[in-house]
């Protein structure tokens, strides 16, 4: 594997981890936000 490809694959891995990590947290915490949003 070329060093250029390896570099971008590592960057991709990090970006995907951040994306799915934030998606997980937002899904869990968003339920309570949604309850507040509809409750007021």
């Amino acid at each position, binding site marked *: 594997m070329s060093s250029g490809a390896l*570099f971008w694959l590592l960057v*991709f891995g990090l970006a*995907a981890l*951040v994306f799915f990590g934030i998606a997980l947290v937002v*899904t869990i*915490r968003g339920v309570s*936000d949604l309850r507040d*949003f*509809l409750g*007021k």
Partner: protein
Amino acid sequence: MNFGTIDWVLTIAYLLASVALGIWARRYVENLAGYMVAGRKVKISLGIATFVATELGTVTYVYYGELGYVAGFSGFIIGILAMIAYTLVGRTGFIIENLRRLRVMTIPEFYELRYSRRIRLLGGIILFLGGVLNMGIFLKFDGIFLSEVMGFGPGALAVIMTIMVVIVVVYTILGGMFSIVITDFMQFVVLAFGMLVATIAVLIRVDLGSISAAVSNTLGAAGVDPFANPRFGWTFVLWIFVSSLAAGALWQPGASKALASESPKVAKKVFFWTGLTFAGRAMIPMFWGVAALAFFGPGLSSAAAMPRLLGAIVPPGFLGLLVAGMLAASMSTYSAYLLAWSSVLTRDVIACARPEDFPEKTTVAITRFVAGVIGAFLLVFGLWYRIPDTAFQYLYVTGAMYTSGALGCVAAGMYWRKANNVGAYASLIMGAAAPLGFLLLEKSREVLPAWLSFITDVNIAGILSFVLAALGMIVGSLASQRNSPPKQLTYLE
């Protein structure tokens, strides 16, 4: 074709749930602020979900997938640029914090507060035209994606797309931003899951070594170095960064999430955390595109390669989840765009052509009608327009028609006391000129004189629009301080 009965059940169940939820939410709409900015009570997590869902449509997957297929890893730079730009906006509150403090509902409203009603009208027209042209190609790309993944011909697809647009128009018309926020949350969860399914399927079926080899053999250095790739280079990088910064702060569908936030502080946090997801938003579909290059080799239709890969490797059952995820992504984007552009046309164009605003109820009624008309336009325009260059660059150049002038007017209006009406007019008109020139002349580049051919380079047209808009604002304002004294702002929060 892997699309089976279980996939159909999942897709239809998802569509029905969207309709039910969207229509149910209309009970929360009590007034204009409720309809357009959900009563300004959106908290951080909900704000992030609705923002990400708005900014991720099937068209996003297709144009990024296309870039991955034709440019390899080089395009990944776009994700990094977008992430830096959006997190910067979130961290500093650049523009969005003050817009939220002013309690405006659309960006052109700012033009009236800081400049004049006529500038609001001009800004509203440019924003509306740029926005609707930008949105015009979404359906075409959704069609490409779904036909490759589901394996249907154009007839069946037209029916699916029409049903989807009708559903979105109905719930957006009825529930406005309330429906959008609620459905966006569900759509965010579904689309993130769909993306996870697709990414895992790609990682299982296409090994990383073959991806690296395909990029190296097909594209050479241009596949890993954005500055060695003729499609990109420094002009492109500069344009995309400035454009992402401007779009981050000023693109109405996205900015409306800041305007709907509970407070200016929440708006900043929503932008910061959403900004962090933007590297993945670009790189994940691009990675699927690069994998399609390894899987099929070069030579396929660039827009169809990535969806064809997913259609071939995602197993039945999961394919239904993926399609539901893509429909979710599209619907959340359409609904936000429909509300954004119908609000702008109603409040900033139709109402501004009169001396006074309409009453709230009339504004909501006209906005609903306009949303229906835009939905019909989408179906027609999406079928016949031939898209120049890659979709990615088309979207950025139509966006630049508005964002360049808006950046000049709003940034200068907030942070430069000398900004005045003449500067605002010059900025809006000069900012729209270069992208408009590109769109009009791009198809007849063979007959253009040599000195004018630069305008058919999408990257140059894009960056030029920002330079012209800034020049227009600075020169126009400085040259007319006596005749047109600047007006100052009063913040409400």
